């Protein structure tokens, strides 16, 4: 994938990446749920309902996630009720980090971390080809 293609394309999380992120969000709840059920069935049920709501929020946030590369910056926007936009100038990028777990590998996705002296952007679960290309483009122009 070339820089021109990246400039034209907004990066969104594919459904498989969203599922992986939801699984990650669900795991701590699954670990803690037996302890909640140990107290009482009702406590366990309430805990599961709250955790399911949290996972749904994560999914909604994943659906709203958009990353975009422009000629001079990289921008990430996410959130439905509380939208947050982060922007780093491309020349300020000091490093990138790619992370692939077995689940992400199976989904064909990668977590990309873009580091700058002030901010750090996390692009969770973007397609591996786009992540690799974006990392290469960002590191080409870095100081």
């Amino acid at each position, binding site marked *: 994938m070339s820089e021109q293609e990246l400039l034209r394309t907004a990066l969104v999380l594919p459904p498989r990446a969203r599922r992986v992120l939801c699984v990650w969000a669900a795991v701590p709840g699954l670990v803690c749920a037996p302890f909640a059920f140990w107290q009482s069935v009702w406590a366990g049920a309430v805990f599961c309902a709250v955790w399911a709501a949290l996972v749904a929020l994560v999914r909604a946030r994943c659906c709203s996630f958009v990353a975009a590369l*422009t000629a001079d910056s990289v*921008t990430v*926007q996410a959130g439905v*009720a*509380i*939208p*947050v*936009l*982060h*922007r*780093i*100038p491309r*020349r*300020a990028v*000091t490093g990138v980090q790619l992370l692939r777990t077995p689940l992400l590998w199976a989904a064909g996705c990668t977590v990309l971390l873009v580091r*700058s*002296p*002030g*901010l750090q952007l996390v692009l969770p679960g973007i397609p591996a080809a786009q992540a690799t290309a974006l990392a290469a483009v960002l590191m080409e122009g870095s100081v």
Partner: protein
Amino acid sequence: MNREKHFHPLAALHLLRKTLLVYLLPLVQVLFDRNWDALRAALRQELVLLVFISAVCWAVYYASRWQVDAEGTVHVSWRLGVRLDRALRAEGLAALVLEQPLLYRLTGACRVVLYPVGQTKTITLYLTRQQAAELADVLLPVTDPLWHAPKGGEKLAFTVLGANGLSTLFLWWLAIHQTQSYAPDAQTAALAQLGQLAALAARWLPLGMAWLLVLAGTLFCISLVRSALQAVHYTVWRTDTQLGSRGGFIRRYEMRLRLCQLNYADLRRSPATWALHYCPVFVSAGACRPELPLFVWREGTPLLRELLPEMAQLPPDTRADTTDRSMVFFLPAGIPLALCLLLTAVSRTTLPALTLPLLIPTGVFAALLGAAAVGWHREGVWQQQGQLLLCRQHQFHLHQLCVFHPDTGFTALQSPWAVTVQRANLTLVFPGKEKVTVRSVPLAALDFLEI
């Protein structure tokens, strides 16, 4: 400069200072036993600890070195079993600060704080005065400087000090007067009323409040004396590559900031600066945020243009668009003000003696609310001729910022309410992780962010 050198012996003392808490441990036993034997045993243990830790600190000091190589890279190595080496290239330096408090001056030492570009972790070295000056000249040499010795800082500091001194003297007189009025039977009254806690509080709180105010005023006065002494012999300079300032009467300091690493310049307006037409100008570079201004600018003089030509323009002196603006500005002062007003109203009937003391925090919060109203009308973001200009209110100060660093990150956050009125809180994140937030800005003003 190229050979390895030891630090100043004060470095060992500084390490020793970090272990002060350890000496409290043996005293815990004294709290339980409460006898002289336990105290003597604790003191003996502390002596052993002091000797042992001093020996360790001295060994660390003796084994540790610093060096500047031919390329101007500073190497610092701490050794004691574990070796910790750190290197910093001259080009990777955003700012450096040389400090000489009284003890350091008496022992010929100087504390050098180096601020690397884009990092929050600083490097602190304890060197001799001569070594510190040489190191500063290697890392950030002062070549062909444009010198200024502005007098505004001294005038501003002494005027504020004078006003505060007079008000504190008045408080002293008030507190002594109140104490004298209670003095003849103060102890008797206190002992007689020990059982009646409410009555005692009602009787003594105004007096206590007066002395509390005296204490606050005196401490503030001491802080102002310190600031005024810092402004003595004040010199500021600019070269092609750096900005710098030095001064101080008892505690000497010097700072040098690399021009290409400047984050922003900040003109701080307050009621005092409005009245005196002097305005302190602060600058920040990397993670270096000096508590002292770089210089004090007398409005209308060309000093600002000469020292900071990058600051081609100030934020416009206009009112911001307040249509649908968030009321969050008023909450930090409004909530305590409402509480104080409520307490004052209640105290009128239940504890009339408390009414007067309660009016003091009420007045302070009312003033803060007034300052918040200024922020509500003035806070904003502008981009003019490619330069980002900000105006933000923090407590009593209106900060007018001019952003210099091109590598500044942005975060725009919207609450559900802000989404409906098309506004956002904009946070600028500078290298060194310094953050500046402007609240409830219309999205139309952030078109450069293309939200």
